[in-house]
């Protein structure tokens, strides 16, 4: 193939990228503005709105809550999701078909409904504290993603490899960690990233489950926008993006490297 790229194609690609990147650039630009109102292009460069984030206690607290909930919910969902995905694939022949569908159902339920039902059943009904309810809600929210993504990478896993390890003297539980997990590593990383992002961005479930004193960052941003229209919204959004990317990088690095050296 020596054909040149057609100008129409290039133009189209540029438009697509502009469409995708545009909002990001506008938000980053607005966050750096020196003005007291949201504007683009930025008028004067300043980091003062980033400092302002930390002066507002609600942002500080909700950011911590968001990261705690996202991390813990993702870990909980993986702890449940990895064995579930394993069992669904390993015993696919023996298990009834509807069982794997069961794990996708939460995706079909509108998040608003999920949030409301959790509010009724565990927060009000069972009297769980706000943070626990939030954690349970987000675990349920991200579990289907974990099961799906890890199932996809287990689908191509040849379980006779597991039997080979067992025949060589490795007990079944140990084989799971030394043979099965390393071979679905990329699936676990993908599931972690997807689950984490889903949780940290969630508004609809958190809307119902946040309570007195405890809120998540997206809810706080929503509350702030209702009252103020200053660039702190843009800067907190940028900070959220940067921190999310940082978490992803750390996950990639640590999970990737520890599994490789085993």
């Amino acid at each position, binding site marked *: 193939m020596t054909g040149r790229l057609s100008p129409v194609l290039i133009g189209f690609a540029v438009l697509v990228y502009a469409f995708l990147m545009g909002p990001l650039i506008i938000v980053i630009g607005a966050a750096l503005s020196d003005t007291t109102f949201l504007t683009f292009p930025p008028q004067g460069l300043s980091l003062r709105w980033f400092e302002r984030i930390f002066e507002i206690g609600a942002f500080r607290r909700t950011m911590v809550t968001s990261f705690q909930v996202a991390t813990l919910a993702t870990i909980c969902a993986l702890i449940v999701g990895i064995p579930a995905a394993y069992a669904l694939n390993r015993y696919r022949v023996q298990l009834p078909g509807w069982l794997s569908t069961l794990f996708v159902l939460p995706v079909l339920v509108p998040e608003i409904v999920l949030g409301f039902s959790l509010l009724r059943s565990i927060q009000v009904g069972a009297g769980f504290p706000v943070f626990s309810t939030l954690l349970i809600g987000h675990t349920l929210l991200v579990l289907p993603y974990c099961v799906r993504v890890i199932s996809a990478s287990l689908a191509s896993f040849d379980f*006779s490899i597991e039997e*080979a*390890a067992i025949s*060589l*003297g490795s007990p079944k539980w140990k084989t799971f960690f030394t043979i099965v997990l*390393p071979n679905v590593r990329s699936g676990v990383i993908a599931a972690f990233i997807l689950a984490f992002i889903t949780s940290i961005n969630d508004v609809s479930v958190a809307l119902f489950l946040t309570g007195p004193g405890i809120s998540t960052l997206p809810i706080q941003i929503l509350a702030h926008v209702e009252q103020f229209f200053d660039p702190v919204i843009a800067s907190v959004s940028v900070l959220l993006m940067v921190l999310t990317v940082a978490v992803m990088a750390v996950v990639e690095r640590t999970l990737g490297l520890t599994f490789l050296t085993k």
Partner: protein
Amino acid sequence: MTAPLSLANLTAHYGTTKVLDDLSLDVGEGELVSLLGASGCGKTTTLRLIAGFLVPTAGTIHLGETDLTRLPAHRRNIGLVFQNYALFPHLSVLDNVAFGLKQRGMASAARAERARAMLARVGLTPLEERLPGELSGGQRQRVALARALVIEPPLLMFDEPLSNLDAKLRVDMRVEIRQLQRANNTTAVFVTHDQEEAFSISDRVAIMDAGRIRQFDAPETLYQRPANAFVARFVGFENLIALEARRREGAIVHAEGPGGISVALDQDRLGAIPDRFTLATRPDGLRVTAQPEAEGIPASLGLRTYLGRAYHYQAETPAGHLVASGPLSRPLQSGDQARLVPEAEQCCILPEGEI
């Protein structure tokens, strides 16, 4: 380190389906036994029971003095070679081979040394740092073999290990497997659906069907003296003809069947012939002749096929549809009337009712 394997009255079920029915089998020390049969005959089930991946509903498995029946799979100390090799994709060739030694708590340096020695034996020393994904099919199979052998198991088992290789490599690898198994004097069970493979490599072969062993004998015996109609058909005795002995003259038995079938058979070459029996022949053991011979099976010839060394004829006879062979020098035509005469070398005698 080797031990005889003894399976006694093994029965196994998948759900409510019985897949193995009261199977007993004894494999001697250092012997290589093949389980041969079509898919679904229970051969792989038998192997998985021995390996411990399945639990029998009844019966026992002994390896030497050890009762394996209820022992967890990882404590059975059996070397397994899989059809798809089942190498660990994330480990190097050396780590794959050393895996079993690691499970046995051997120190890192010692197990690397043992694994390297084993890799040298299968001729893979230069590839020890590679990942399985970077190897050819034959190389992968050698790694799988080295990985199973390095733990010096008292029993080696092969699950269709050659079926993913091309024809030439398959023949080379089976010789290699046999040599390594002989050199270590390891008891071995080899599962395959390929008759030539089973016969060429084994001391004895168990031909299986519907969860049972139909005959367990040396390849020569199976090939020449099948014990029943199933095994006879399996090893190529396509024509089965029910006959009755009418006259005996010394070793010669004159037998007759329906519709004017009359043949003379030599007990010196076929073994003792009872009064009622089934004659089984390969197509090459049933000679077509247009001569008006007194003896033979009257036949109306159908389709003729050319096989290089002879012609084969589809023939309609009073004993049903048979396949016979004729010389290249005198081809006969479709529709010709002829007689089919059995040749002792390609015939065998089955008990009455085996048809």
